[in-house]
């Protein structure tokens, strides 16, 4: 009983971290694409450092 | 004075919708046909054991009502959108909730008639024995229909004007109807049985609260939704 519980606990934490990291990567990629699109549109006029 | 004008406009819209429906008839017949067809398919899928059918009767009737209801709600705005009549409707003076109220009234009569037929078919097909306390069952049915029509009409006013209306309306409507589905089916099953747990009353109260809350919420939200 204990061994099988172990796998489920590990699975739960793996799924949690998997989801969080996957979304982080999705955000980074989409952010880069959006910024590049903006850059193409209006080169250099971004008003922040 | 203004209230009487608004009420006259609501009646005019509802009468116009129902006259169009009676003239065309194709709308009502197709929706009822769909409802009964779904009922028969459920009977085939869940049958033939009589007791199983009797247990599933309430659920089957409500699912048939929900699915064919979606057809009716989309249609109620269809005519207006295709002919450009919606733009004319938006031109009349007076508050715009009268459009929603008019559509609501029209859909309420339409769906009530449809449900009456579907329920009758359900009683026959699923061998339901009518208990003595059937008026309470009618009460549950009425409250459920009001909830269904309120949200159905509200979401149809958007879905029917967007690209994928057949998909969007069910996607928006069905999750929101979970409380109605649970309350209506559980209360009906209880009333069909002996309501030992006396839970029917609690469910009916929940349905009433649901209807009041969403009556207010949809009327407020409609102003923002209807403008182009």
């Amino acid at each position, binding site marked *: 009983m204990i061994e099988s519980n172990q796998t489920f606990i590990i699975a739960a934490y793996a799924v949690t971290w998997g989801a969080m990291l996957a979304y982080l990567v999705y955000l980074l990629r989409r952010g880069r694409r959006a910024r590049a699109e903006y850059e193409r549109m209006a080169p250099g006029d971004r008003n922040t450092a | 004075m203004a209230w009487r004008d608004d009420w006259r406009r609501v009646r005019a819209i509802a009468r116009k919708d129902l006259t169009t429906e009676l003239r065309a008839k194709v709308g009502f017949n197709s929706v009822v046909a769909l409802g009964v067809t779904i009922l028969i398919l459920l009977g085939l899928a869940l049958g033939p054991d009589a007791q199983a059918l009797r247990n599933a009767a309430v659920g089957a009737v409500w699912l048939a009502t929900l699915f064919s209801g979606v057809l009716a709600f989309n249609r109620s705005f269809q005519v207006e959108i295709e002919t450009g*009549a919606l733009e004319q409707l938006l*031109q009349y003076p007076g508050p715009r909730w009268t459009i929603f109220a008019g559509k609501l009234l029209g859909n309420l009569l339409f769906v009530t008639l449809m449900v009456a037929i579907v329920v009758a078919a359900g009683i026959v097909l699923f061998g339901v024995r009518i208990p003595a306390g059937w008026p309470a069952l009618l009460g549950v049915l009425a409250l459920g229909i009001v909830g269904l029509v309120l949200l159905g009409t509200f979401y149809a006013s958007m879905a029917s004007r967007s690209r994928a209306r057949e998909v969007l309306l069910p996607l928006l409507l069905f999750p929101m109807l979970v409380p109605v589905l649970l309350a209506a089916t559980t209360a009906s099953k209880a009333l069909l049985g002996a309501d030992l747990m006396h839970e029917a009353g609690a469910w009916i109260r929940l349905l009433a609260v649901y209807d009041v809350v969403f009556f207010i919420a949809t009327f407020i939200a409609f102003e923002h939704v209807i403008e*182009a």
Partner: protein
Amino acid sequence: MFNAQPDRALDVSGLGKRFGARWVLRGVSLDVRRGEAVGLLGPNGSGKSTVLRIVATLLRPNAGAAAVNGFDVVREAGGVRGQVGYLAHSPGLYDDLTARENLWFAADMLGSPHAAAEATLERVGLAHVAGDRVRGFSAGMQRRLALARLILRNPRVLLLDEPYSNLDADGVALMNSVIAGILRSGGAALVALHELAPARAMLKRTCTLVAGRIEAPSPERASRDQPVPIPGTD
């Protein structure tokens, strides 16, 4: 926001409108004085209908503003709806209802008596088909019924989108008499047109909309010089 001079029936300044990524109106300004009909010319897709629909409170502008007799189209949309009569490109009628039922519905929504609806049916020459369903009407007959509905509103400002399309000679005369009647009683009209011919008599002046902007309006003096008697006014 802008000073609504008393004689200005319609005042539009810097109107901008976009659909998704496409800007259809890019800063349109024009005005129509009382008793005046102004033509709005321009090719398809130049934004003529969009201007009319914004003034008719059917569309919300993304930029700029417009007012009808001092009522702002966005903030006082209710007031504007009491002033304008918008004749759309598509008739917007209920095909399964008869001509009379369509008009009685409009009368109920406007709060005017059914007798008024009967009178307008007479005026637009559809009394003989009042009991027939609109589904069987020709485009010209549907246009007349839409005009009857417009007359029922007795609007102060007319917004007409291609009003002469599908109309025969009598129809054009009827349309012009309706416009003339409104102008005489101090109303105004903004008429979107493809070609000028049928409306020449009506228009005080015209302006041309190209790709969402007003080109230099036609010289005031030219169109004023030919005072044309308003035909067929009883």
